[in-house]
């Protein structure tokens, strides 16, 4: 069986550091290459590009924007995919209605924002609404067909069809844009040099504040999830359930309650991501399958059931999408697809997944 969250992580940072050191010891050449690539990448981002460089790679502005958009998009993707992977890791349930939860959260958040005028409050509403749907799904349906992976997946498929049709009914087919609140509106200067003018004056990158804030928030959520999984009692139960849910249940823990809570949390995260997506881009008909695809790609690349894997996969897929759109528009999706194929060929369980 594939087991997900690294149990080694439980012992904390010290042993984790050891594992990292061991990996470097086992793969000296690979780690050297990775280190060189990382250093080159950091140099590409921070330093002003020398003359002649822009002839080959195009404008630095394009490159930096692709990096920033890709990483912040990765933050959004992480929010969606982490719930997906959490549910999958614990319950072996490929929730194909996850994209619908995302879209539903986005619409509910939009309604709440229109009603109260508060952007932050709409996150609470979106989380609660999507979580309630998640609880209902787990309580009324999946609880009754435990262990039947394929049947559960087919049921989520049927649900996603019904949900998307009902949402078209209520909110129509037009795209809805969620307004960025005033205090996050507009670009902020960053210390990254885009170019140096002829008079020696440096041009710095201006980047939308809201995207940076959301990225920081999703990092915080990721770190919070990691801490909750590795430092709290509920986290211990979840990790134990991932490894062997029957044994956990035999030991007298209330596995069903755990399942409902995890499903609610994963669904709620997807709902919150809906608002983020509505603020970044827009929410509309068809976005549910788009974000389902994103979740699939992220967990396939990062490793199924692994939270750190979801973070890594989200950054990779986000960047691949943005770089594809910047540098070869007609084949942008092929790039993410090629990454997926390479990962599947080398590590079928995903980069940070375990068999």
């Amino acid at each position, binding site marked *: 069986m594939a087991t997900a969250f690294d149990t080694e992580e439980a012992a904390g940072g010290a042993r984790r550091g050891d594992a990292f050191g061991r990996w470097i010891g086992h793969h000296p050449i690979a780690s050297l290459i990775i280190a060189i690539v990382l250093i080159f990448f950091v140099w590409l981002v921070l330093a002003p590009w020398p003359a002649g460089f822009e002839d080959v790679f195009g404008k630095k502005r394009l490159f930096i924007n692709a990096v920033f958009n890709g990483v912040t998009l990765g933050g959004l993707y992480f929010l969606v995919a982490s719930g997906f992977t959490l549910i999958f890791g614990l319950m072996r349930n490929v929730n194909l209605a996850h994209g619908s939860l995302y879209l539903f959260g986005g619409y509910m958040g939009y309604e709440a924002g229109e009603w109260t005028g508060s952007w932050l409050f709409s996150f609470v509403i979106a989380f609660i609404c999507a979580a309630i749907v998640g609880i209902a799904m787990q309580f009324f349906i999946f609880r009754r067909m435990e262990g039947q992976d394929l*049947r559960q997946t087919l049921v989520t*498929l049927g649900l996603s*069809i019904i949900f998307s049709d009902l949402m078209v009914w209520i909110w129509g087919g037009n795209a809805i844009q969620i307004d960025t609140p005033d205090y996050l509106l507009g670009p902020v200067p960053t210390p990254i040099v885009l170019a140096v003018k002829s008079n020696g004056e440096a041009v710095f990158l201006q980047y939308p504040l809201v995207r940076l804030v959301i990225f920081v928030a999703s990092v915080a959520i990721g770190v919070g999830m990691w801490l909750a999984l590795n430092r709290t009692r509920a986290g211990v139960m979840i990790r134990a359930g991932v490894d062997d849910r029957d044994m956990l249940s035999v030991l007298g823990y209330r596995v069903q309650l755990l399942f409902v809570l995890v499903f609610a949390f994963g669904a709620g995260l997807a709902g919150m991501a809906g608002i983020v997506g509505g603020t970044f881009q827009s929410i509309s008909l068809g976005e549910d399958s788009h974000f389902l695809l994103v979740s699939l790609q992220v967990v396939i690349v990062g490793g199924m059931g692994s939270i750190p894997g979801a973070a890594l996969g989200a950054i990779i897929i986000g960047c691949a999408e943005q770089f594809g759109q910047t540098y070869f*528009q007609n084949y942008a999706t092929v790039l993410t697809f090629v990454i997926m194929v390479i990962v599947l060929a080398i590590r079928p369980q995903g980069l940070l997944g375990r068999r």
Partner: protein
Amino acid sequence: MAVMQTTGLAPLGTQDLQRVGALSRWVSRHALILILGALMLIMPVVASDFILVQVFGWAMILGIIALSLMFLAGYGGMVSLAQMTVAGVSGYMITVFGVSSLPAISLFWPWWLAAPIAIAIAVAFGTLTGVLSSRTEGIYTIMITLAIAAAFFYLTLQNWPIFNGFAGFTTIPAPIAFGINWKHPVPLYYLILFFAALSYLAVVYVSRTPFGLALQGVRDNPRRMEAIGYNVIAHRVAAYAFAALIASIGGILMVWLNNQISPGSNGIEASIDLLIIAVVGGLGHPIGAFVGAIIYVLLRTFALDALVAVGLDGRRFQTLIGLGFLIIVLFSPDGVIGLWRRWVARAGGPGERSGF
């Protein structure tokens, strides 16, 4: 199968009687299929052109593509959501190599050259899908094939040089070959019927060959099959290749019938609808794919009017499909075929054959 037992010593009359007996046994065992086949053959006499092509033709094409999914899922245990994509690849390729209203992209090669090339490319694509997904099992297969299907959908949507973006291709008539204009309803109907019957028989045949039996063994217990010396991965990939062959034929017929192809033809929704067709029909028997397809097409064609007639919003068709699918998955996991088998077993008592 009816196995003749001839002793050689028996007088001629007995042998003839045995032969007649075996034939009648075979006929009665396959009565439903034979009646169905006869009905389909004489259909053009009674049905209008619309019913002939848009209902039965379309259902048989969806049935052919769903059959490829049924083969993978029912005999191989691999639920692939990329079969509609394989059909889409062959459909797109026949427009790229063959005829369409876009001389900038289409090469206008004759059908006997374009069709084999399209099928070959689609089979290569399907086999590649198999190579990628056969290293994983169960729900992982669904995830990977869905990701592949979605990636191809977005590729066709965003790519203009080859796939002409969201507009796709129009005006791709069935060719004129052997002196027959195949775009006319009746010839087109028989063309589709021929390939539907051919692919049905091919699947039934392959499922009984040593390869088909080994594939079913792989489905039931891959580790045991591996242990007794079968190459599990090779069997799975070969199954994907065979399924891709069937799906790609369906894809070409789909383009000829619809006269167009666009990203929506092989979109995520279409892929999921195909899975619904296969599951609702039943993954236990090849005929299930066609049963599911005819139910789906009838709903798709007439549900709007029916919903309006009972005072509901006709646009809620997808909800109806989704609900029907949920009910089937929740209450009869082996689909309509399963319902039928149980009904026959109850009506005829134990020992009675189901007709399939």
